[in-house]
């Protein structure tokens, strides 16, 4: 009786612990703002590479970095700012293949007429931003507000979102007066409109670094996809959604 239980337990443990790596699996950890772009690009890649299966994880770059650090499966990481890529680089979790994927700009979106410049923000009651602790979009905004000298005044008006898409959703619903999102997110919005662009002088250029993780570097399908993203076929897709390539 005892040996039966031990055997059953062993089998159960093995089943639970085993994470078989099937050929053709590629795990992507991608900044939330790149969702549509990566969906399209991965679909086209899959058409020409049958047998490759993508597992996509979209979210705030800081949150993604933490997940990768804690062992979440990931082959390709695309961050919305340099900070989180550097974070993983310092932890030796990404390989030396870091390149820049694309660029973006910050805008303020909301219902028409709410605001037309940074100064107008002081009149508003609720403004959504990504949480600066983990969302690059939020970090860029904080940087801009500080440079504009408005950070203290707006302190209690900021609603923290878990990623830039949630930010947009708050704006769409109308529960906030407006939200700081990327231009590319605002273009997808139905109700919210771009009210003004945040002056580039106030914040660092929005840069999307991308890299293969240490595990991804050993995955030939991941490596192939990584090359594809840097190739000529990716650029029109980026431009279509409003991303900048320079």
């Amino acid at each position, binding site marked *: 009786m005892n040996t039966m239980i031990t055997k059953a337990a062993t089998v159960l443990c093995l089943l639970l612990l085993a994470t078989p790596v099937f050929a053709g699996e590629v795990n992507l950890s991608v900044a939330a703002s790149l969702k549509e772009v990566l969906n399209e690009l991965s679909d086209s890649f899959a058409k020409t590479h049958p047998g490759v299966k993508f597992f996509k994880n979209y979210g*705030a770059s*800081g*949150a993604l*970095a*933490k997940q990768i*650090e804690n062992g979440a499966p990931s082959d390709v990481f695309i961050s919305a700012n340099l900070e989180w890529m550097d*974070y993983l680089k310092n932890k030796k979790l990404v390989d030396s293949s870091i390149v820049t994927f694309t660029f973006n700009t910050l805008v303020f979106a909301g219902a028409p007429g709410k605001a037309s410049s940074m100064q107008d923000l002081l009149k508003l009651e*609720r403004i959504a931003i990504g*949480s600066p*602790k*983990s969302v690059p979009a939020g970090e860029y905004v904080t940087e801009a507000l500080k440079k504009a000298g408005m950070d203290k005044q707006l*302190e*209690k*008006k*900021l*609603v*923290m*979102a*878990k990623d830039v898409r949630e930010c947009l959703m*708050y704006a769409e*619903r*109308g*529960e*906030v007066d407006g939200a700081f999102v990327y231009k590319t997110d605002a273009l997808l919005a139905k109700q919210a409109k771009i009210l003004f662009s945040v002056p580039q002088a106030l914040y660092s250029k929005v840069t999307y670094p991308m890299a293969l993780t240490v595990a991804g570097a050993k995955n030939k399908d991941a490596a192939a996809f990584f090359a594809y993203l840097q190739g000529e076929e990716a650029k029109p897709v980026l431009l279509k959604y409003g991303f900048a390539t320079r």
Partner: protein
Amino acid sequence: MFSLAPTDYDAIRLSLQVSITATLLSLPFGFAVAYLITFAKFRGKMLLEVLVNLPLTLPPVVIGYFLLLLLGKHGWLGSLLNEAGIRLIFTLKAAVIASAVVGFPLLVRSLRIGMEGIDPLLINASRTLGARWHDTLLTVILPLSGPGLLAGSSLMFARSLGEFGATIIVAGNIPGVTQTIPLAIYEYSSSPANEMMALSLCLVSVAISMIVLFLHEMMSKKMARRD
């Protein structure tokens, strides 16, 4: 090292504020509902009991979503409030409402147990001595519900301290305004580094909960001893 940021102190203050307010606001309603369920006979009583217990079984995010539909700017009730100039979503009031709804069944449950423990003989005696139903309610039932009230309040308070799902949807994560302890910890959890700060806040949360639960146990024992 144990360390708390200024926003963490805000979070603690807001958590206590929301929990205390939600509990105090719910008390009269909870008492009335517990009274009806324990002593009144009417059709549809079972429906009332089910509705009261519903938040206990629904995922808090579902409750939050329904509250959003109800109280949002375009919501059924929310649109009316909006015209009156009252906004609830993304304010501390919404956090109080979320905690109140989620904790209500716990309050009613404890109150019911307390009331059911009251000897019906006392109520009969009160009535034959000339007291009308509301007189009996105030002079006999309420004083004897004391332990039930305290047990229910402390349980509800403890639950409110941990309320996350509904709160984040209707009150949002606004540091210094609606960011309660669970919301602050959630924010920390998405961010690498900040481990010590998250842990410090977690410890504070555990400490507060333990104190409240000790109180609850003491009250419950007092109720049991009475019988």
